[in-house]
C-alpha cells in the first residue's frame, strides 16, 4: 500500500499538467470571428471560411463554415500574419491579410461579392474597400520594423477605460451645454437686470416674483452644473498622458467657475434673505452679482477653450 503514494502523486501531477497545458496554450492564442455578408449586407449562411498562416510563420490552415446568421469563429490562432478568404452561394471574398495580436478576441467581417464583380478593374470601384492587392513575396513584418511587442500588443483594459471615459465625458459635455441655458437666464433675470415691466417700464429694483424666478434658475443651474462636473471628475484617467492644448485651459478655468458655482448660490441665498427682509444686500451678499458674472464668464471661456480652434465654415467664402 505505501508504494501507491508516489503513483497517486504522479497521477495528480499528470492531471494538473493536462488541466494547465491547455490554459497556457489558450493564453497565447486568439479567436478571430466575424460575419460574412454580401454587398447588400445580407449574411451568407454556410459559407466556407479559410485562414492560412502567411509564409514564414508556423504552417496553419483552418477551414470553418458560417452559421445561419453568417457568423464564423476560428479559435486558437497563434500571433502572426494570416490570409483569410471566404466563399459561398456563388460569392467569394478576396484574400485579406490579417495580423493576429495578443488580443483574445478579434473581429474581421468578410464581404463576399460575385466573381465577375471581383474581376472588375479596380478603378471601377473607387475608394475602399475594393480588391486586395496582389500578394508579393517576402513581405516585411511588424517585428522587422523594430516595434516592441509592448507597442504592437492590444490592451483590452485600456480600451475599456477609454470607452468609459468617452461615455462619461459625452454626458459631461451635454449637461454642460444644457447648463448654459438656465445660467444665461439667471444672469439676465438678476435682480438688477434692467428687465421690462408689464407696461414697458424698466425695472431697476428687484420684485418678489423676479427674485423667485431668479433663485429657481440659479438652483437649476447649480444642480446641472454639479451633475455635469461629477461626470468630468469621475471619468477615468488615462495613464501616461501628458495633457496639452485647449483641455489644459478648460481644466484650469474650472478652478475659477468651480468655486464660483459654490459661492454664487451662498451669496445669492444671503442676498435673497436680505432682500425679502426689506434690506439692501450688504457685505458678502452684495458681491453676489460680481461673483456670478465672473463665474459665468469663466464658464463660457472654458467652453470656448475646449472648442478651440473654432472654425466656422459658414463664415468662409466659398
Amino acid at each position: 500500500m505505501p508504494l501507491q503514494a508516489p503513483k497517486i502523486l504522479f497521477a495528480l501531477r499528470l492531471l494538473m499538467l493536462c488541466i494547465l497545458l491547455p490554459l497556457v496554450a489558450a493564453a497565447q492564442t486568439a479567436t478571430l470571428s466575424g460575419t460574412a455578408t454580401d454587398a447588400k449586407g445580407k449574411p451568407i449562411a454556410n459559407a466556407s471560411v479559410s485562414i492560412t498562416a502567411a509564409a514564414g510563420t508556423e504552417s496553419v490552415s483552418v477551414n470553418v463554415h458560417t452559421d445561419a446568421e453568417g457568423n464564423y469563429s476560428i479559435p486558437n490562432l497563434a500571433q502572426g500574419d494570416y490570409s483569410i478568404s471566404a466563399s459561398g452561394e456563388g460569392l467569394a471574398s478576396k484574400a485579406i491579410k490579417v495580423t493576429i495580436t495578443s488580443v483574445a478576441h478579434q473581429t474581421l467581417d468578410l464581404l463576399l461579392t460575385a466573381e465577375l464583380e471581383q474581376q472588375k478593374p479596380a478603378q471601377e470601384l473607387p475608394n475602399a474597400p475594393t480588391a486586395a492587392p496582389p500578394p508579393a513575396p517576402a513581405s516585411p513584418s511588424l517585428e522587422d520594423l523594430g516595434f516592441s511587442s509592448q507597442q504592437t500588443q492590444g490592451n483590452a483594459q485600456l480600451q475599456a477605460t477609454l470607452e468609459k471615459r468617452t461615455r462619461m465625458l459625452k454626458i459631461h459635455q451635454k449637461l454642460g451645454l444644457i447648463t448654459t441655458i438656465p445660467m444665461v437666464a439667471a444672469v439676465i433675470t438678476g435682480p438688477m437686470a434692467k428687465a421690462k415691466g408689464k407696461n414697458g417700464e424698466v425695472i431697476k429694483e428687484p420684485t418678489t416674483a423676479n427674485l423667485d424666478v431668479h433663485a429657481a434658475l440659479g438652483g437649476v443651474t447649480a444642480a446641472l452644473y454639479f451633475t455635469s462636473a461629477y461626470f468630468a471628475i469621475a471619468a477615468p484617467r488615462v495613464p501616461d498622458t501628458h495633457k496639452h492644448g485647449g483641455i489644459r485651459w478648460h481644466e484650469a478655468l474650472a478652478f475659477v467657475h468651480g468655486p464660483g458655482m459654490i459661492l454664487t448660490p451662498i451669496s445669492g441665498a444671503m442676498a435673497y434673505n436680505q432682500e425679502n427682509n426689506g434690506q439692501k444686500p450688504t457685505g458678502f451678499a452684495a458681491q453676489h452679482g460680481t461673483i456670478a458674472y465672473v463665474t459665468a464668464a469663466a464658464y463660457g471661456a472654458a467652453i470656448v477653450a475646449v472648442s478651440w480652434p473654432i472654425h466656422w465654415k459658414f463664415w468662409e467664402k466659398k
Partner: protein
Amino acid sequence: MKSRLLLAFVLLPVAVEAQADTQWLLDQSTLSYHMSHPMHQVDGVSHAAKGKGTCHAGQCSFLIAAPVKSFDSGDTNRDLHMLDATRGAQFPMVVVRTSFSEAATTAPTIDADLEIQLAGQTAHYSHVVFQRVSDGNSVRITGTIPATCSDFKIDRPSFLTVPIKNEIPVKVEMTWHKM
C-alpha cells in the same frame, strides 16, 4: 575552356538577378489625417511611422506602420477621443501594406494598391497615386489616401453632439532610402 567561359557568361546575369534583392528603409515621415467638423478643421500628425520595403524578382513589398496614439492633433482630449473611436488601445497600430513592380519605384508617380489595417478592420484602396522625387539614394514620396471612417467601421467622433465628416483623408510625406 571556351564552353566554360560561355557558360559563365550565360549564368552570370542569372546569379546577379538572384542577388539583386534591394531593401528600402523609411527615414522620415509625416502622416496627417484631416478631420472636418462644422466648428473645426483639425489635423492629427504623426512622425512615428516606421517602414521597410523589399524588392525581389522585380516585385516590391512595402510595410509601413505607426502607433495610433502617436497622432497628435494639438489637444490631448481630442486625441484620446480619437484613440477610443479608432479602438487604438485594442488595436494599437495602423499598418499599411503595398506591393508593386520594381520598375514603379523609379517612375515620377507611383500608382499603388494599399491594404490598410486600422481599428481591427482591413480596407483596400486601389490606384492611390503618390508623387515621387528622387534625391541621390533617397526618395521622397507624397500623396493622399482617401480614407473614411466607415471603411474601418469607426463611429464618427462628435463634438457638441455633431459628428465629424466621414472623410478623413490621410496626407503622406515619406523619405525612403535604398539600402
